[in-house]
């Protein structure tokens, strides 16, 4: 898979790397001192990344934040994960962005606070709770796999009458498909 991180096109930016993580100056920086932490193994979105790797990356993010506080004397940091192209993910390789922030940097990343109606919260809470209790489809590794496993499920389902509801759910929730299709 062509990936600028796996192909090591930005070696000059790398600050540190080991078997699990790569810490580097951002490929497309948003501020001076913008740092990105990548997993060494190629994962596209966070859902694919094992918990162990995520915990290593986040622990490193904490330390990087401290380096920025201390060395660049910044007043704060933003830690951001953009998960999916719709969310603004630019590189098809899972990463955490760490942005040093100063009180006078005129960056506006946060949103205007606007209180939600209690009914709206209630309904979304219901949807999410239901979603938590329904089984999830398998997380797809690559584009090829999206179609093939699904057909297998179909065949199994025809024989097995016990799981029609589950299958319907799975059919609706091919959300990974949607995300992967958009990745360049």
């Amino acid at each position, binding site marked *: 898979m062509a990936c600028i991180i*796996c*192909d090591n096109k930005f070696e*000059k930016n790398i*600050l*540190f*790397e*080991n*078997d699990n993580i790569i810490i580097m*100056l951002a490929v497309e*920086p948003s*501020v*001076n001192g913008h*740092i990105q932490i990548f997993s060494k*193994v*190629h994962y596209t979105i*966070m*859902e694919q*990344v094992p918990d*162990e790797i*995520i*915990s*290593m990356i986040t622990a490193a993010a*904490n330390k990087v934040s*401290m*380096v920025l506080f201390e060395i660049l004397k910044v*007043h*704060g940091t*933003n*830690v*951001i*994960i*953009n*998960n*999916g*192209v*719709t969310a*603004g993910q630019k590189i098809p390789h899972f990463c955490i*962005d760490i*942005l040093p*922030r100063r*009180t006078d940097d005129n*960056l506006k*990343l*946060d*949103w205007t606070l*606007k*209180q*939600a109606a209690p009914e*709206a*919260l*209630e309904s*979304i*809470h219901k949807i999410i*709770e239901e*979603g*938590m209790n329904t089984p*999830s489809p398998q997380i797809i590794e690559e584009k090829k796999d999206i179609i093939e496993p699904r057909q297998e499920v179909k065949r199994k389902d025809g024989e097995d009458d016990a799981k029609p509801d589950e299958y319907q759910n799975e059919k609706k*929730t091919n*959300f990974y498909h949607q995300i992967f299709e*958009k990745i360049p």
Partner: protein
Amino acid sequence: MPEREVSEEDLKNMSPDEIAELQKQNCIFCKIASKEIPAKIVHEDADTICVLDINPASEGHILVYPKKHYMIMPHMPDEILAKVFKNVKLMSHTLLKTLQCGGTTIFIANGVAAGQKAPHVLIHVFPRRENDGLVKLPQYEMSDEQIEKLKKELEPYTAQIFGRRKKIVKEAEFVEKKHEKTIEEKPEHHKHENSESKNREDDEKKRDVEDKDKTDDDKRDKNPVKKDSKNTKVDLDDIARLFG
């Protein structure tokens, strides 16, 4: 102690620790975690809680945070951080599944300068849709010299903390082998920390000890690790205390 009894003069006379204690007592998010204030709880376990944000950036905005009071993310010990992010992943997954959005953003602000609004570390997880105009990262042009300069500035410190950089292995070689290895090794390390460490100070001492163990292979410098953790501690509190 109710909030109203503390006058501004009292606040001036209080030590930073006392102010921190006061903030802890009046923290809305601690109260939500202890169920004193009702909230729409989506998921909960022993150390972390996931609730719907009442001021959502987009529909389905969830806050994931540790029940224990930490002000900013670098205050959190690694094992709590791992638990929190396990739930962050679960929440992101649930949002993608239930709301059929095209992606999610995980957003953390450390310090008022970064847009932090509550003195409790909060991990925002919210669904993203096309052209919603949220969290727009600007472009910042950097010349090669600037990159070089910044790298020179930061690299000594990252080397102190993380150790020296390993040489690059080609993609095909590491993809399968190395990944398996790390999964076997790391969980044990975490369990070890979990069972023994009860508060942060113990934790830090142990990490220092562990770091010293690792220095046997001559790849790390011994002294800088300790010095660093002391120096940054002061800075961290400064950032957290901006709320006072």
